[in-house]
């Protein structure tokens, strides 16, 4: 009984970090997520981790605060993040944003910051919070 309990504990101890690493996929992405987690916790002490579901809701949501041409992330990235998209303002083709298609996504911190700043303003009319950024990347890391 005690032994089984220990085994479960051991499995959880190994399995949870593994799942986290798998979701993050690369040390660079893990570091970006860790930074956002620190900021999310600072903003809300009750922060208990990023959520794929919240990230998907953000991705699929429709908003009215930003540019009329981009009410949603899907305006440029289509409903399927594994598919190529198209910039709704310039028509420029956009490579898929799903990590499974392009593992280099969300691994360059400066680039990630720059693009969230640009795109959140366009879709939401404001910058994204650290929680929203972390949720979004967590969703894309599972796509």
């Amino acid at each position, binding site marked *: 009984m005690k032994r089984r309990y220990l085994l479960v504990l051991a499995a959880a101890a190994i399995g949870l970090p593994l799942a986290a690493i798998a979701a993050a996929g690369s040390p660079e992405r893990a570091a970006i997520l860790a930074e956002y987690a620190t900021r999310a916790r600072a903003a809300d002490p009750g922060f208990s981790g990023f959520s794929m579901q919240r990230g998907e809701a953000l991705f699929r949501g429709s908003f009215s605060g930003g*540019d009329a041409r981009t009410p949603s992330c899907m305006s440029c990235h289509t409903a399927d993040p594994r598919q190529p998209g*198209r*910039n*709704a*303002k*310039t*028509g*420029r*083709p956009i490579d898929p944003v799903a990590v499974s298609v392009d593992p280099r996504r969300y691994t360059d911190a*400066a680039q990630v910051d*720059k*693009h969230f*700043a*640009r795109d959140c*303003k366009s879709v939401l009319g404001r910058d994204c919070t650290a929680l929203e950024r972390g949720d979004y990347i967590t969703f894309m890391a599972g796509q």
Partner: protein
Amino acid sequence: MPMRLLMALAAILLAGLPAVSQAGGKQVAPVADPLTQKVCGECHLAFPPGFLPARSWSALMADLSDHFGEEIVLPAGQAAQIEAYLVSHAGDAPGGGGLREFMRWVAPTGIPRRITENPAFLREHDFPDRVWRDPKVVTRSNCLACHPGASRGWFDD
């Protein structure tokens, strides 16, 4: 006789055409600077600098807080570096990416901000509205929608 006159007129008109279509009939020097290519290319085709005069590039780079309605925030020093490249390769710069002919249409004191307003561009893109409304076009500045070689400076097709 009137027929011959008409034909002569047509010949003159046709002879004038290559001059007008020159910008579309040969390779235009594409952006060769990696930083310019990367930063401009994040949102749209990094337009060949030869399509605008130097003063236009300076005006565009001086006004990044309202770049066609977008606020562009760049790390310190990048804007100056990009402007230096664009200005030194502009249509009226020595060499000018082979676009002196295209520059002919720019008013001597004009500071155009849109390549798509050049009369030479308009003449070669005189399409019905339905062409411009094609979902893959999105906007007139989306060269790549119809010119797959635009990134390499080919606008021939």
